[in-house]
């Protein structure tokens, strides 16, 4: 690999010889001796990079989940003390109760790492890397070197974010959206000092990682497909990863612009976001004038809204694929599925201001954003309809992957419906910044995409490790997580409708929310149970890598797509011989009475041609 490595190193700057030469000539079966470092650490094999993203994402999921357990402890038991917390957190939990600063730091870090590190890097980083080359029929990404860099930028971002937890003044604590002035003024709160600097550096590196990854995914899908793999023969997973990458490549740079201005406001005395500020902790009036904090919100949400779809689309794509495979039926309305992904991707750029209805936005402008926002319901409904019709009278195999995919559909419906409430600016005056919003986005984005990720792991595990995960553990994991997630987030809708605001440290001091004491305790308890059950998944995952039942057939699910034509444990280059040619679309299940027909099989003599 080393010559190719050097070649790829210079992509965009200097000489690579013709890449096809590099790819086709010397790949085939790989029998080079790879060192431990080049195989497991600085790997350029997309499959290994995928696993690196996955496992790093898992570490963050555990840390982020643990944080939520800690702050739910505060919300559920505001009057109790837990001495163990002081042992664990030291000065952040004096007397066994989490301090207000620690609470906000936990909430902020939880949000940041789950949105970006787990559900962006861990989800699209893992599966775009793993599945794109395998399913389009390529030996690797367009630029394996950039792909490797993408992971290592993410890794560095992770290390820096992690280190921010341990600085003297604590990590950033102004919310995952990092609005100024809290994010712009070091004196605004303890977390706004070093913690915020580290947050910014980490996020900037994360943006670079996402861009490097996204460029590669797009180039690979458009340029490296095998013979016969026209765009309309692509599995829906690939379409979803493709649109995800397009969203990322076009929206992350705007966030980056916002960060640059923020850095200048923090450290170089500019006034982009700051105006007329008096800082209580230092008793000082700041000289900054004319800046606008709302400007930051525009820049942030221009990424922020596409970001929620960056998180969701991969889950949608994988759910489509898994539902069809395990219902043994073609996906219903393939072109409508692609078109609705496209519509969602376009609309995602036109609705950001629905996060800003109550910022003093011009009401006329607001009504345009209401209209555009509600339009998203159409492609969303098309997708839901098609998933349900795919399941309808299917010959369903309830594998763990399938269960999680069905769970995904259920959660997407529940959470999507509440979006329609929020999308009305008049209703949003009441609902904004309440627990209703928390319920909405956790169900539709957080839990739903987590389900997509679990579905993907259970389904493609045999391809990743050549072994199966344990089904019993998987079923327990599924049912407890599904029921638990609804029990946690469903009641929050009522709290939000009752006006309970989000981002408060202690609700027990408010007369109007006293009657929620029991409910809060209940939610916190379920949250702990659900968190604990995730360890079943982790144990299952790591145990099965070495001890799981071995996969003995090339195509254990009887699926049509190309990844199942590779050897059980594919080497770097994926196919030992030539890359197979594709003759049909990816959804010939139950056609002409045949259970499934792989994409590589030629159209038969008497077969009704499909695509």
């Amino acid at each position, binding site marked *: 690999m080393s010559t190719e490595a050097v070649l790829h190193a*210079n*992509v965009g*700057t200097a000489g690579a010889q013709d890449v096809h030469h590099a790819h086709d000539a010397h790949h085939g079966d790989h029998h080079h001796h790879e060192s431990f470092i080049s195989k497991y650490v600085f790997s350029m094999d997309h499959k290994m990079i995928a696993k690196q993203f996955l496992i790093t994402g898992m570490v963050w999921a555990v840390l982020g989940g643990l944080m939520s357990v800690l702050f739910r402890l505060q919300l559920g038991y505001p009057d109790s003390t837990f001495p163990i917390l002081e042992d664990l957190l030291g000065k952040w939990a004096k007397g066994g109760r989490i301090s207000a600063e620690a609470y906000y730091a936990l909430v902020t870090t939880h949000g940041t790492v789950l949105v970006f590190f787990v559900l962006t890097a861990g989800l699209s980083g893992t599966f775009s890397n793993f599945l794109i080359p395998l399913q389009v029929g390529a030996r690797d990404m367009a630029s394996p070197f950039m792909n490797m860099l993408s992971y290592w930028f993410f890794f560095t971002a992770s290390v820096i974010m992690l280190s921010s937890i341990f600085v003297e003044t604590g990590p950033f604590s102004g919310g995952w959206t990092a609005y100024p002035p809290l994010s712009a003024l070091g004196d605004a709160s303890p977390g706004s000092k070093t913690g915020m600097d580290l947050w910014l550096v980490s996020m900037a590196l994360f943006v670079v990682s996402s861009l490097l990854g996204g460029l590669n995914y797009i180039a690979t899908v458009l340029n490296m497909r095998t013979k016969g793999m026209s765009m309309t023969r692509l599995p829906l997973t690939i379409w979803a990863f493709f649109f995800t990458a397009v969203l990322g490549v*076009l929206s992350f740079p*705007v966030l980056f612009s916002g960060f640059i201005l923020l850095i200048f406001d923090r450290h170089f005395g500019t006034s*982009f976001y700051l105006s007329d500020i008096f800082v209580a902790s230092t008793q000082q009036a700041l000289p900054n004038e004319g800046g606008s904090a709302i400007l930051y919100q525009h*820049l942030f949400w221009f990424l922020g809204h596409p970001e929620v779809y960056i998180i969701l689309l991969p889950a949608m794509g994988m759910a489509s694929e898994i539902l069809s495979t395990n219902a043994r039926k073609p996906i219903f309305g393939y072109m409508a599925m692609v078109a609705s992904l496209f519509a969602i991707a376009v609309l995602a750029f036109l609705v950001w201001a629905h996060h800003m209805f109550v910022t003093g936005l011009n009401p006329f402008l607001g009504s345009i954003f209401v209209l555009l926002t509600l339009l998203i319901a159409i492609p969303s409904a098309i997708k839901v309809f098609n998933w349900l019709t795919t399941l309808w009278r299917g010959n369903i195999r309830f594998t763990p992957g399938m269960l999680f995919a069905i769970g995904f559909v259920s959660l997407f419906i529940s959470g999507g419906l509440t979006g329609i409430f929020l999308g009305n600016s008049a209703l949003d005056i009441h609902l904004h910044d309440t627990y209703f919003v928390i319920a909405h986005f956790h169900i539709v984005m957080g839990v739903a995409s987590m389900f997509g990720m679990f579905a993907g792991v259970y389904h493609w595990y045999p391809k990743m490790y050549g072994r199966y995960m344990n089904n019993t553990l998987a079923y327990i994991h599924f049912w407890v997580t599904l029921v638990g997630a609804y029990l946690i987030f469903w009641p929050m809708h009522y709290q939000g409708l009752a006006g309970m605001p989000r981002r408060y440290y202690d609700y027990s001091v408010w007369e109007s929310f006293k009657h929620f004491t029991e409910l809060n305790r209940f939610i916190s308890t379920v949250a702990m149970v659900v968190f604990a059950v995730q360890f079943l998944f982790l144990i299952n995952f790591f145990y099965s890598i070495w001890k799981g039942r071995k996969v003995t057939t090339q195509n254990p699910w009887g699926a049509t797509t190309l990844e199942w034509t590779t050897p059980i444990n594919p080497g770097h280059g994926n196919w030992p011989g*030539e890359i197979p040619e594709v003759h049909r679309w990816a959804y010939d299940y139950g056609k002409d009475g045949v259970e499934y027909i792989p994409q590589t099989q030629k159209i038969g003599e008497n077969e009704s041609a499909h695509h």
Partner: protein
Amino acid sequence: MASITTENKRIHPHKFTMWVAMGSIVMMFAGLTSAYLVRRSLGNWQEFSLPLVFWYSTVAIVASSVTMHLAVKSFKARERVRYRQMITATTLLGLAFAVLQAFGFYQLHLQGVTLIKGSNPAASFLVIITGLHALHVIGGVVALLIIFFRAYQSKVKNYSVIPVEIVSTYWHFVDALWIYLFIFFGLTH
């Protein structure tokens, strides 16, 4: 091999990646220039005229696009000496551009326009946007240096034109980006 026949018809993946990356850079500057417009519409906006030097830097970068174009042409015609000359000229013009931009800010500073600390957003936006653009030009200069030295090193006569073309695309892109920014600032100042 099966895959070669189809792949050769398509645009080279690395070139394509460059195009997508340029889309990404466009979005960054689109974000910044829209932020500029939004902020300007809120009032409290200092008016000052753009430094005259920006005209010279514009000439420099447009000229560099021409030399870049000639460099690719001579590369394809295998005229190595001329290729090196043109690459050298492009590199120097690129550096000259960056220096002239910095000089422009020095002029503004002399006129009493504060650029960063305690400045009006009108001036800080100008510095940040043009500064960021200049960084992209310098990135291009680095890329030019790399292919320049490769031209000396390489013993193989028929190496690929792809990297040269990619750098050249990028170079024309930062040129066009500057023209856009120059017109943008010209119209809005």
